């Protein structure tokens, strides 16, 4: 099983355009659905509020790691356990973080964007319990899932 997420998408637009959509805080906010307070600056914390319908009470907080123009943009962000409105605290000070990286490459038709998110092994065990409270699939279903998952990754 992988401890990271990796996505690769082809975008029919030049690298400069994709770079802007990822690193301009207003454009980022538009597709990510967050209202950021100001521009991304290397080494600084970016904050704002999620605009995704139903989750407007959720805070966005990330620390920009690297901005290599038209090549790479990365930030770390915290994961909190519960996003239920009643239990959500908005306190990320002790939250475990993962690293998000966007890499851009020019292709014949536009841009290849690779997104990775890594560091999930930092998350504490109670994330597991939380995931289970939301799961009503039952154990035999889980066994089957694990079987096919293991088969895929072995």
């Amino acid at each position, binding site marked *: *099983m*992988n*401890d990271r*997420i990796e*996505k690769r*998408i082809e*975008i*029919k*637009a030049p690298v400069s*355009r*994709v770079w802007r*959509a*990822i690193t301009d805080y207003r*454009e980022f906010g*538009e*597709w*990510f*659905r967050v209202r950021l307070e100001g521009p991304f600056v290397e080494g600084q914390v970016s904050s704002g509020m999620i605009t995704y319908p139903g989750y407007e009470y959720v805070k966005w907080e990330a620390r920009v790691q690297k901005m290599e123009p038209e090549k790479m943009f990365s930030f770390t962000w915290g994961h909190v356990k519960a996003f239920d409105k009643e239990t959500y605290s908005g306190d990320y000070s002790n939250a475990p973080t993962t690293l998000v990286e966007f890499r851009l490459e020019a292709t014949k038709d536009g841009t290849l*964007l690779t*997104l990775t*998110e890594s560091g*999930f*092994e*930092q*998350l*504490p*065990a109670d*994330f*597991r*319990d*939380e*995931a*289970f409270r*939301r*799961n009503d699939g*039952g*154990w*035999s279903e*889980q*066994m*089957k*899932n*694990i*079987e096919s*998952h*293991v*088969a895929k*990754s*072995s």
Partner: protein
Amino acid sequence: MSPSLPSAGRRRIDHALVFAALGDETRLALIAKLAGGEPRSISQLTAGSKLTRQAITKHLRVLESAGVVRGVREGRESLFELDPRPIAGLRQYLESVSKQWDEALGRLKALVER
């Protein structure tokens, strides 16, 4: 397997350990054998493998310390069974984050291509 598994699930299980435990082909094969839900003996788990009983036992201990597998006694025999929770929990969380990225990147693509 029943949803009312004993308190083993309350043990602190470290995700790093779970990932490390899964990063090995022999251990993945052991998990696949145990994924049917039936507890198995070391002999059963060694059968069909090129590895020695000792080597298999060592791998089972790694899985046990990650909380992925637990030992159960049946008479004089020691059996091992899978605890699906650590793996399934991780998997589910990763999948939900992964799905959110798919949606967000889809919106990004739509935004720049329009």
